[in-house]
């Protein structure tokens, strides 16, 4: 049964090769990509059910036992995030396919499908990697695919954005490699479970340096302030579905890696001040940046930066309640951010512009199909945390954790979180005003652009519905997050599962 753990990586990689060989047969490519992602989703769900019932599933790749051999580990956190990530990746793929149909200048250039599959494989490997070096390989796999996706059909703006994006990511990758080397020099192992037992013995200075270096490495990928500058400059230039999948998943992998590494390798007893300060800065800078923007995609990118701060908030508290809040927030945010970018894609396709001021003047309210309104409303209100939507559930968990933790730092975090929530609502209202309320000016509705095929709308509806499912299933999901967080704080289960022999 351990093969279940390998499939989310193996299937997309093998299919990527096959899809590349099917060059020229667009229908076959689409069908294969969709089929493979569906299979991976089914596999991830089965994995989650098993992990939930029997504890972590560990696979020793090639039969070599850890800590020397490579292991893939699916614990509750990894399995849960894998399910959500693949679900969103599948929905975005359907959106891209729908958008590509009947549009020769589409996002579906030749390398799209293979790159997309490799991206999903990298995501899967990042969630399942059981050692630090494999995590590096996973990041590289994922990022290499993303370099291709962000520069698809490269015109000038995309080449410019691609340069910023690629150079920043590469710098962080090389820092990661350096960190791996230094960790190996200090402890003699890169296996995460093995490391968990060895970092305790390190001198305080070495521990702090390694912890900070890894925080910076993953901080660049997760776009925390002040390492966020690259994100709003590069994401908005990519086509809507690609921006959606990047925004929803890539930064979250950075957050996941931070959570995994810091809880396992550098456990703390009290508030983590560095993360707390960074969390407050990220929330405020991100949302104040968003409020100033005129381009809808840039606005959403800045809110993405700001909301990474919420995930750091839970990590900064460093207790079970805080981490449970972080996990819940990651799940909610993956889905909601993806749906917002997809809705923005529909709006931009209908109005032919991404600029809010031009939408307002052009009478966007008449052009945008009325069905898009409720989709945006649900996603935006959920992001802002209006009860009873999923954002409220996640924010409530975080705020409750902060208040329960007590102390000046935790209260400051809670206050910043509330302010950020308000600013988010303001930013979302700006988009709503520009895109959905028509001006008083009368005139024939412009027939600008296509409003997107039925499949794009269906895919967007799917992500929004998934967001609503998070609300409906909030109870069980919160329970699941709490158990996952408990396993993070008490790392013994993870260590025993990996080092205690195969199951």
């Amino acid at each position, binding site marked *: 049964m351990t093969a279940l753990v390998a499939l989310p990586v193996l299937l997309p990689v093998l299919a990527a090769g096959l899809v590349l060989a099917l060059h020229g047969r667009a229908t076959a490519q689409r069908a294969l990509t969709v089929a493979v992602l569906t299979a991976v989703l089914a596999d991830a769900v089965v994995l989650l059910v098993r992990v939930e019932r029997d504890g972590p599933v560990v696979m020793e790749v090639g039969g070599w036992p850890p800590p020397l051999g490579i292991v893939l580990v699916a614990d509750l956190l990894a399995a849960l995030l894998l399910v959500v990530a693949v679900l969103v990746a599948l929905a975005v793929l359907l959106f891209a396919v729908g958008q590509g149909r009947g549009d020769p200048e589409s996002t579906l250039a030749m390398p799209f499908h293979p790159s997309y599959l490799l991206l999903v494989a990298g995501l899967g490997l990042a969630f399942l990697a059981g050692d630090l070096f494999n995590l590096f*390989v996973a990041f590289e796999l994922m990022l290499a695919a993303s370099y291709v996706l962000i520069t698809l059909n*490269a015109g*000038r703006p995309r080449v410019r954005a691609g*340069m910023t994006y690629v150079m920043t990511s590469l710098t962080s990758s090389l820092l990661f490699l350096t960190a*791996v*080397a230094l960790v190996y*020099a200090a402890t003699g192992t890169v296996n995460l479970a093995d490391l968990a037992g060895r970092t305790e013995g390190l001198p305080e200075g070495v521990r702090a340096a390694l912890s900070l270096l890894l925080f910076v490495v993953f901080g660049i990928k997760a776009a925390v302030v002040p390492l966020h500058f690259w994100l709003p*400059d590069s994401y908005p230039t990519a086509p809507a579905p690609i921006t959606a999948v990047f925004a929803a998943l890539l930064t979250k992998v950075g957050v996941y890696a931070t959570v995994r590494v810091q809880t396992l390798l550098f456990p703390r007893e009290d508030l983590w001040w560095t993360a707390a300060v960074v969390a407050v800065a990220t929330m405020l800078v991100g949302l104040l940046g968003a409020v100033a923007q005129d381009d809808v995609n840039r606005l959403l990118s800045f809110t993405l930066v700001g909301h990474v701060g919420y995930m750091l908030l839970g990590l900064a508290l460093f207790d079970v309640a805080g981490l449970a809040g972080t996990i819940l927030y990651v799940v909610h945010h993956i889905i909601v951010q993806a749906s917002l970018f997809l809705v923005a894609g529909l709006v931009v396709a209908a109005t032919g512009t991404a600029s809010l001021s031009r939408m307002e003047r052009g009478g966007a309210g008449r052009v945008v199909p009325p069905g898009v309104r409720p989709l945006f409303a649900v996603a935006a209100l959920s992001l802002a945390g209006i009860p009873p939507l999923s954002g409220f559930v996640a924010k409530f968990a975080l705020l409750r954790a902060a208040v329960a933790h007590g102390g000046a730092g935790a209260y400051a975090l809670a206050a910043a979180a509330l302010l950020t929530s308000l600013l988010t609502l303001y930013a979302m209202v700006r988009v709503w005003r520009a895109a959905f309320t028509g001006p008083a000016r009368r005139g024939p509705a412009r027939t600008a652009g296509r409003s997107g095929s039925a499949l794009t709308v269906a895919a967007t509806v799917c992500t929004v519905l998934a967001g609503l499912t998070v609300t409906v299933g909030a109870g069980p999901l919160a329970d699941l997050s709490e158990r996952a967080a408990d396993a993070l704080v008490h790392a013994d289960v993870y260590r025993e599962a990996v080092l205690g022999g195969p199951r």
Partner: protein
Amino acid sequence: MKTLDLTMALVVGGLFSTGVYLLLQRSLMRALLGFILLGHGANLLLLVVGGPPAAPPIVAGGESPDPRVYADPLPQAMALTAIVITFGVTTFLLALAYRSWLLSGHDETQDDVEDRRIGTAAERADVEPAPAARPDTPERGEGDR
């Protein structure tokens, strides 16, 4: 306690500093060279942390002699993987630089104008009449970015 070869330490330090310096240049070609040097630095660091050079870690015939005569194979395997990855990414960067050269005749990273436009919006509003007063203001073209 492991001892560190001073020469190697200096080489790694030199590669990192020149690499970072080049990485901060505007031209993508120089940044690429910086990336290559930085990659070499990181790979060399991986090799150095494996300890001093020693015999190939191949145990023949099943006997298990003193492990200290062998080199540590793990960092070497990691360095090999990292080299392959850096190589692949280098070719991608070359293609990107070429693409940029085709499109705009140079490979320099351009500033993002949107930030500056928003940053100076308030100042421009002071100087110019309000947009509402001039309904005929030509809109910014799509190709401006």
